[in-house]
C-alpha cells in the first residue's frame, strides 16, 4: 500500500501549494487600494527534502512585483507629495482573479485525483473480499 499512501502525500503537497498561492492572491486583492503596496507572487518548485516522497511540490520564496507603482493624483490624500501625487499599488485585479481561478482549478484537479486514488485502493480490496 506504499504507492497509494505516497500518492496521498504528493497530492496533499499540491493542495497545500495551491492553498498558499491562493493566500497570496487574497493578500494582493485585499491590498489593491493600499498605497505603495507591491503585488506578491509565489513560485512552485519540486520538493527535494528527504522526508517527503519524490515528486512533491512546494512553494518557493515570495517575490514582489517590481513593476512601477502607478502615480495617483489626489492632493487631499495624506500621503500626497508636493505635486499632489501619491504611489498606488501595482496589483492588477484582473490578473489576480485569473490567478485565483487557476489555483481553484488546480486544487479541484488534485482533489479529483485524491478521490480516484481512494476508489482504486478500495477496488483492490474488493477483489480480496470475494
Amino acid at each position, binding site marked *: 500500500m506504499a504507492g497509494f499512501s505516497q500518492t496521498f502525500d504528493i497530492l496533499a503537497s499540491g493542495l497545500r501549494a495551491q492553498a498558499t498561492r491562493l493566500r497570496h492572491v487574497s493578500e494582493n486583492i485585499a491590498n489593491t487600494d493600499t498605497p505603495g503596496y507591491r503585488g506578491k507572487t509565489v513560485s512552485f518548485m519540486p520538493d527535494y527534502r528527504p522526508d517527503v516522497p519524490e515528486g512533491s511540490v512546494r512553494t518557493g520564496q515570495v517575490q514582489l512585483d517590481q513593476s512601477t507603482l502607478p502615480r495617483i493624483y489626489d492632493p487631499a490624500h495624506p500621503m500626497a507629495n508636493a505635486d499632489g501625487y501619491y504611489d498606488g499599488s501595482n496589483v492588477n485585479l484582473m490578473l489576480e482573479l485569473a490567478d485565483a481561478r487557476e489555483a481553484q482549478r488546480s486544487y479541484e484537479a488534485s482533489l479529483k485525483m*485524491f478521490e480516484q486514488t481512494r476508489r482504486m485502493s478500495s477496488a483492490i480490496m474488493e477483489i*480480496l473480499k470475494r
Partner: protein
Amino acid sequence: MDIKSTLAHRAYSETFAPKPQTKESKEADFTQIAQSFAETVQRGEAQAKAALTTQADPHALVTALAETKLAVDTAVTVRDKVVEAYQEILRMQV
C-alpha cells in the same frame, strides 16, 4: 572436469531457491506489519487531534485519515480472509 546436467540443476537450486523461512523470521515479519499498521492508525489519530485544536493544516489531516482508512480496510479484509480459511478447516470432515 565433467559437467552433468544434475550439477547445473544443483547450482541453480542453490543460487535461486527461496531460502526456507525460519519461524522467528515469519513472526518478525508479522510483527512488523502489525506495528506499521498501529503506527498508521496512531498517526491518523494524532493528526485528527492536532487539527481539532487548530494546529495542523487540513491537508495533513485528510492525508492521514485516508491512509488510516486504507490501513484499516486492508487489515479488516485480511482478517476476514484468515477467519474464513480457519472456519473452512474447522468444517472439514474427519
